[in-house]
C-alpha cells in the first residue's frame, strides 16, 4: 500500500508542469459499476461487498450481491474496488474556500464585506473556480462546499458549490441558500489586562439585529414597495423558509438568546459553531435546531473545562439526537475536514454517524438532501473511492472521485510541485 500513492501520482492523464488548475471533467458518458467495496452510504448504513452503479450523473444501484438482480455488465465500465471504501462526496459547510487564496495577502481575500449589515452580499459571485486551493481539497474527498461570507453582524448569503467547474455559474449547486448572522461575542478578551470581560456593546448589537428582523418582517409584507431596500429584501426568503438562517454563535447564552430571537420571527435557525451546544442539548432538541460544529480541533473553552471538551461534543450531540455536521474553519483547511470526524470517532462517535455528519446530515442542514449527501438510488453520483479508511490520515488515499457522474481529476498544484522536485532529485542535478 505504501507505494500506491506514488504510482497514482505518476499515472494521471494530465502530467503537466504548467501552474494551472486541472481541466474540469466532461459529463459522464459511460455507466460505472463499482463492485466489492465497503460502501458507507452516508445515512448511517454500511454495505459490505457492495455494488454501486451510476449513469448520466445519477446513482442507479446501491445493492449487495444478494439483492442485486439481473444486471447487464457489458454496458458498464467496471471498477473492482475490493478492499476499498466508497463514500458519498464529503460536504464542507461554512467555509471561505475560493474566497481566499492567500490569507495574508489582502488582494486575494474576498471573505467579508465592510460594515456591520451586509445581508445582501452574495458569496457565490466571489467564488474563484481557478483558485489553486479547491483541487487540493477535493483530492481528500471533499466534493461540495458551502461558500460562506464572514464578518460584521449580518455577513451575507452563502451558496453551495461543487468543486470542479469552469466558473461560478456551473460551480453553483444551489445558490443563496442561507443568510448568516455573526452573533456578537458576549465576552471579549482584553489583551492588556489578560482578562475576559463582558462585551460592553453586546446589548446594542443585539438590538441592531432585532431591529433589522422587525423592520424586514414588516417590509416583506409589502409586495410592491415604492423603494427597494436591498438589505431588507435579503431577509424576505428567510421569513418564508426559502432561505435558511445560519447563526454563528458559540457561547451558551448567545445560542439561547439567538434562537429565542429567531423563534420570535417564526424562524428555526441553524447554529454554526456551537461550542457550548453540549450543555444545551435539551434546548436545541426542543427547538429542533441543528448545529454545524466548528473546529473540534480546538482548545477547551476555559482552563477548568474537560481537556476533551471539543472532542467529545459530537458524540454528545449524537446521543442527544441532535442533527449536526462537521465543519472546519477557513479555506485550505477543508482538506482536513474528514480527520475531524475521525477524531470524534476516537472519542465515541459511531463511525457511520461520523460519515453521516460529513455527508447526509450536512446536506439536510443545508437543504440539499433531496439530491445529494448519500449513496442512494436516484441521487447525484457524487462519490469517491478511498484505498483505506477516509477518516484516518494514515490510510485515507482517495483514488477516484466523481461529481454528478463526472470523474474529476485529483491532481493539483501541490502534486505538480512534488513531481517537479522528484525529477530534480532523480536527475541528481
Amino acid at each position: 500500500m505504501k507505494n500506491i500513492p506514488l504510482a497514482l501520482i505518476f499515472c494521471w492523464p494530465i502530467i503537466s508542469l504548467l501552474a494551472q488548475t486541472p481541466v474540469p471533467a466532461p459529463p459522464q458518458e459511460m455507466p460505472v459499476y463499482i463492485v466489492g467495496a465497503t460502501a458507507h452510504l452516508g445515512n448511517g448504513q454500511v454495505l459490505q461487498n457492495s455494488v454501486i452503479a451510476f449513469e448520466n450523473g445519477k446513482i442507479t444501484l446501491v445493492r449487495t450481491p444478494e439483492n442485486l438482480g439481473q444486471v447487464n455488465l457489458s454496458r458498464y465500465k467496471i471498477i473492482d474496488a475490493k478492499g476499498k471504501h466508497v463514500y458519498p462526496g464529503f460536504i464542507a459547510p461554512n467555509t471561505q474556500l475560493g474566497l481566499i487564496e492567500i490569507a495574508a495577502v489582502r488582494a486575494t481575500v474576498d471573505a467579508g464585506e465592510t460594515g456591520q449589515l451586509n445581508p445582501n452580499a452574495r458569496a457565490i459571485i466571489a467564488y474563484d473556480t481557478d483558485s489553486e486551493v479547491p483541487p487540493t481539497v477535493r483530492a481528500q474527498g471533499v466534493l461540495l462546499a458551502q461558500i460562506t461570507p464572514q464578518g460584521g453582524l449580518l455577513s451575507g448569503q452563502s451558496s453551495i458549490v461543487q468543486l470542479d467547474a469552469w466558473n461560478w455559474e456551473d460551480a453553483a449547486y444551489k445558490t443563496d441558500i442561507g443568510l448568516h448572522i455573526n452573533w456578537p461575542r458576549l465576552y471579549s478578551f482584553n489583551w492588556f489586562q489578560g482578562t475576559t470581560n463582558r462585551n460592553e456593546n453586546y446589548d446594542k448589537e443585539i438590538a441592531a439585529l432585532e431591529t433589522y428582523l422587525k423592520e424586514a418582517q414588516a417590509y416583506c409584507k409589502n409586495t410592491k414597495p415604492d423603494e427597494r431596500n436591498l438589505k431588507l429584501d435579503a431577509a424576505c426568503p428567510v421569513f418564508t423558509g426559502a432561505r435558511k438562517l445560519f447563526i454563528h454563535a458559540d457561547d451558551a447564552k448567545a445560542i439561547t438568546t439567538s434562537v429565542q430571537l429567531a423563534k420570535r420571527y417564526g424562524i428555526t435557525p441553524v447554529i454554526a459553531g456551537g461550542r457550548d451546544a453540549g450543555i444545551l442539548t435539551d434546548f436545541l432538541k426542543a427547538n429542533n435546531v441543528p448545529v454545524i460544529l466548528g473546529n473540534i480541533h480546538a482548545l477547551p473553552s476555559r482552563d477548568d473545562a474537560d481537556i476533551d471538551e471539543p472532542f467529545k461534543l459530537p458524540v454528545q450531540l449524537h446521543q442527544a439526537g441532535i442533527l449536526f455536521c462537521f465543519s472546519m474553519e477557513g479555506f485550505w483547511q477543508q482538506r482536513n475536514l474528514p480527520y475531524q470526524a475521525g477524531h470524534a470517532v476516537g472519542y465515541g462517535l459511531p463511525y457511520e454517524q461520523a460519515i453521516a455528519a460529513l455527508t447526509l446530515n450536512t446536506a439536510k442542514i443545508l437543504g440539499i438532501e433531496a439530491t445529494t449527501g448519500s449513496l442512494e438510488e436516484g441521487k447525484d453520483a457524487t462519490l469517491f473511492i478511498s484505498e483505506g479508511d477516509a477518516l484516518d490520515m494514515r490510510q485515507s488515499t482517495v483514488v477516484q472521485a466523481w461529481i454528478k457522474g463526472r470523474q474529476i481529476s485529483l491532481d493539483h498544484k501541490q502534486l505538480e510541485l512534488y513531481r517537479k522536485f522528484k525529477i530534480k532529485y532523480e536527475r541528481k542535478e
Partner: protein
Amino acid sequence: MTGYQRTLRLMALWLVSWGALRLSAQTTFPINGIYDQREGLYAFTNASIYTAWNQRIDNATLLIRQGKVEAVGQKVNVPAHAVVIDLKGKTIYPSFIDLYSDYGMPAQRQDAAPGGRLFGGAVQRTTSKKGAYNWNEALKPEFRAHEVFNPDDKAAKTMRDIGFGAVLSHQHDGISRGSATMVLLGEAAPHELIVKDKAAHHFSFRKGSSRQDYPSSLMGSIALLRQTYCDAQWYKATQGKEEYNISLQAWNDLAGLPQVFEVGDCLEALRAAAIGREWNVQYILKGSGEEYKRLEDIKKTGSPLIVGLNFPEAYDVEDPLDARQVSLAQLKHWELAPSNPARIAAAGIPFALTSHGLRNKADFMAQLRKAIENGLSEQDALKALTHTPASLMGVSDKLGSLAPGKIANFFITNGNIFDKDTKVYHHWVGGKPYVLKNIDVPEVVGKFSLEATTPTPGGQLWRYDLVVSGTDENPDMKLMLNDTASVKVKHTLQKDHITLSFAFKEGQNRVRMSGVINGRQWSGRGEDEQGRVFTWTATYTSPSEPPKDVKKDDKPATKSEPGPITYPFGAYGWTTPPKPGTWLITNATIWTNEKEGILQNADILMRNGKIVQVGKGIKAPDATVIDGTGKHVTSGIIDEHSHIAISRGVNEGTQASSAEVRIGDVVNSEDINIYRQLSGGVTTAQLLHGSANPIGGQSAIIKLRWGYAPEQMKLEGAPGFIKFALGENVKQSAWPGSDRYPQTRMGVEEVYNDYFTRAREYGALKASGKPYRRDLDLEAILEILEGKRHITCHSYRQSEINMLMKLAERHGIKVNTFTHILEGYKVADKMAKHGAGGSSFSDWWAYKYEVYDAIPYNGAVMHEQGVTVAFNSDDAEMARRLNQEAAKAVRFGGVSEEDALKFVTLNPAKLLRIDHRVGSLKAGKDADVVLWSDHPLSVYAKAEMTFVDGIRFFDRQEDLRLRADIQAERNRIIQKMIQEKQQGGKTQPVMGRQSFKLYHCDDDEDEMD
C-alpha cells in the same frame, strides 16, 4: 469633672493652635512676625505603651521633646514644665510605616494612547528625554523622589487615619524608578518631613510612561535590567572615560541602598530574584498578593517581601452560565488570598505590610482584620507594620518603635488596635498631634431629670425623665412622657455644649433647647413649640437600664475551611507533588525507535526516572504492572517548536537582533496547556522566541513536568538554542509603514553578516584581556560562532534557506535546524549536505504569500534526501495531536510508519541534541513514555498515560477523577461566594482570567505598557 478630663480639655485647646508651630530649635527660613518656637515637651502618663512590636509596658509614661522620644517606661521623671496628658485606659502604639507609596510624588504623565506601530503611531526607538541619560527611557535611576517630594495634607491625613506615620515614597514609573525617600506624614514643610533622602532604589518589569518600543516583552525587561547591570559595572570600571552617562552614574550611586522590586505575580517574584542572584543583589520584593501559590520557592530566594492587603472581592456567580467565566484559580484565590500574610509569616519570611493597592485606604484595618482572621497573629501584623519596614530601610534608629532618640511617631487608642471597635484618638507625627477623635467626651449616658421653667420665678412648665442610652460617643436620647410613651430627642454634643429638640407629638412644632454641660448637670435656655422662651436643667438621677435581651452576634456557625493549594494553582493541579514510580508495562506493542524496531507483545520497565529494560518477559516484583495488551507504547512526543508556557510576550521584536532575551527567563509553569499536551503524549518541548526579527531570543527546552516551578521544568544540561527568522515576518510585511531594518531579504542577509562580524570582533576584544563592556546581545551571537549555541531558523522560501546556509558556511558555522521550512523540499539535497535538519508543519499552506508553494509532501522529500525531519506544532492545540500530524507523512509521500513516528519523537530529539536522553525507548534513557490506546499514528489513538522521568503526569482515568474534583471545588467556593453576597459582602461582575495567552510566532504586541 475629673482631673483627667480637665487635662484632656486643656490639651484640646492646645491642639487647635499647633499648625503654625515648629519644633526644631533653628530654621533657615526667615520669620514674618514673632519667633514662637516651643519645646514640645509632653508627658503621656498611665498608658499602656507598645514600645516595640513585641513589648508592651502598662502604666507607663512616654516623654517627648522637640519631636523626639526622650524617655519611655514605668519610671520616667516628668519635668515640672512638661504638659502632662493622663492616658489612663488608653494605649499607645508606634506609628505604622508603609514602604510602598507614591505619597507626595508628582502626578504621572497619562498619555491618551500608547504609541508604536500597533496604534498607528511612529515607533520610538530610543529615549525622548533630552540630556546625557540612558538610551532606554524606562530606566530612570537618576530620578530622586526627595527632590520633588511635596507634602499633600489630604493624602497624609488619609494615611494617618489608618495608623501610618511614615512612608517610603517613590514614583511608580518605569523599570528603574530611581530613589525613594522616607518621609513623615505630617503637615509641615518638606524640610521637616524627610527622614532619609535616598532610602531605596525601586524597580519593576513595567515600562510605565515610556513610549519607547524596547522592551515590548517581559523577557526584554529582564534582558534590559541584566544589560544595565553590565553597563553600570563597565561605567564604574572606566570611570566615565568612555562616555558620560547620568543614568549609569546614578545607578551606581544607588547601589548601596535597599533595592525594592515590584512584581506582578508569584512567578515574577522568582524571576526578579534570579536577576538579583546574578548580580549579588538581594531584592526586597513588593509582592502581588499571591506569594502563597509558590511560597517555598519564594522563600528559597531569601527575599524579604512587601505585601498588600487588597484581597479580591467575591464574584457575582449566581448565574451558573456567567459563573463559568471565572476559573477555579480565580475562585480559589478569592478564598486563599486573605491567608497570604499569615502563610508568609508562618514560612518565616520577613515581610512588611502596605496599604498599596487598596481602592479605598479606609478599608485598611478591615482588610488587616481579615488577614488576622485568616491566621496572621496580631504580633506579626504589628511587626510587619513597624519593626520590619524600619529595619528593611535601615531607619530603625528613627522609626518603628518608641525609644529615646527616635522620632515621636505614635498614635493613641482606647484599646487593641486590631479590634473592630477600637478607636484612634490622636496620631502624633514628629511630635505633633493630629486629632482623629476627641478624647474628652462628656459622660452623658444615664437617666436625667429634665425640667423646664418659665422666666417667672417658680413657674415650672414641665418635667420629664430623659433617658440616654448607647455610648457617650454615640448616645440615643428619648423623653419619657409617661411609663410607656416616649418621644425621640434629637441632639448635638460638642465638648461641653449640648442642644436638644423634640416634638410632643409627631408632626407638631418642636421644642428646642441649647445649653452647657457641667459634669452631670446640664442647663440652658430653650424655646417651646410656640416660640416662648424658657430655661431648663437636666440633672443626673440614675444609670439607664441596660437594654433587655442582649443577643450576641450570631457568627456563621462553622467557618468553612479553605481548599488546598495546588501546583499549579487551579484546575488539574497537584495537591502533593507526584513522585517517580517503578512501572512495568506488559504485553504491549513497543515502538523502540532503536534498531530493534517495533516489538510485539513486549514489556518495558521504568525505575528511578529511567528506562531500565525493554524486551520480553521482564520481571520486577517492586513494579506497578500496567497491562498493555492491545495497546502501544512509544517514546514521549517532542514538540520542536512550541510557544506554550511563556509569560507576557513571545517576541522582543523591537530590534533586528534580540539575542540577549531568553525564553528561559519567562517560562510559565501555570499554563494549563502543559497538562493538555501531556494528554496528547507530549513530554518535551522547545519554547521558542517568535519570528519578528532576524535574530530572536534564546530558547528554553522544557519537560512537561506539570506542577513544577519554572526552573525545575527546564531539561537539565540541554544545549543552548537561539531563534533566527527569515522572510515576511522579519521584513515586517504585514506592518504597512514599517521602517525597521531590514525590509527585504537582501537586508536580512546583511543583518546576519553584520552581527556575525561584530560578534567575532567582540570575541577578539574579550580574548585580548582589555577591559570591555559585556554585551549580552553579542555574547549570545558569539556563542553561536563558538559552536556553543545552535540556530533554529524560521524559514519558508528556498532562496533564503540557501542564503543562510551559505552565509553560515562563510562564518564557519552550521544552521542546526530550519523550522517551518515549507520549501525545504526544493533544497533538501543542499540541506542534507550542509547538515541542517528540517522541522516542519505536516500540511499547512496558503496562509501567506511565502507559503503558497508549501506542499504536504515536504517532510517525505526531505526525509528521502537524508535530512533529519521533525513535524512540530507552533500551536497549543495542534500539539495535542502531533501523532496524527506524523501520520500525514505516511499519507503524503509514503514514509514508513516507523519513520513517521520518529518525526515527532526521535528526530526532534536529535535536532535539539538531546537524543542521548530522550526520543527512543532504550535502557538508560529518561523514562518519557506514552501508553496509547491504539496504533499511535491512528486518528483513533488516545494517550492513556504519559510518563515524564518515570512520573505519571497524565492518566486518563485519574483525569476523570480530577474533573469531578474541579466541579466539587468550584461548587463549594461558588456557594460560599453567594453566601457572602447574601450577607451583604461586596461582589464584582464575573471576569475570566486564563492561565496563559496563546502565542504564535508572529504575535508581537507590546506587553510591557
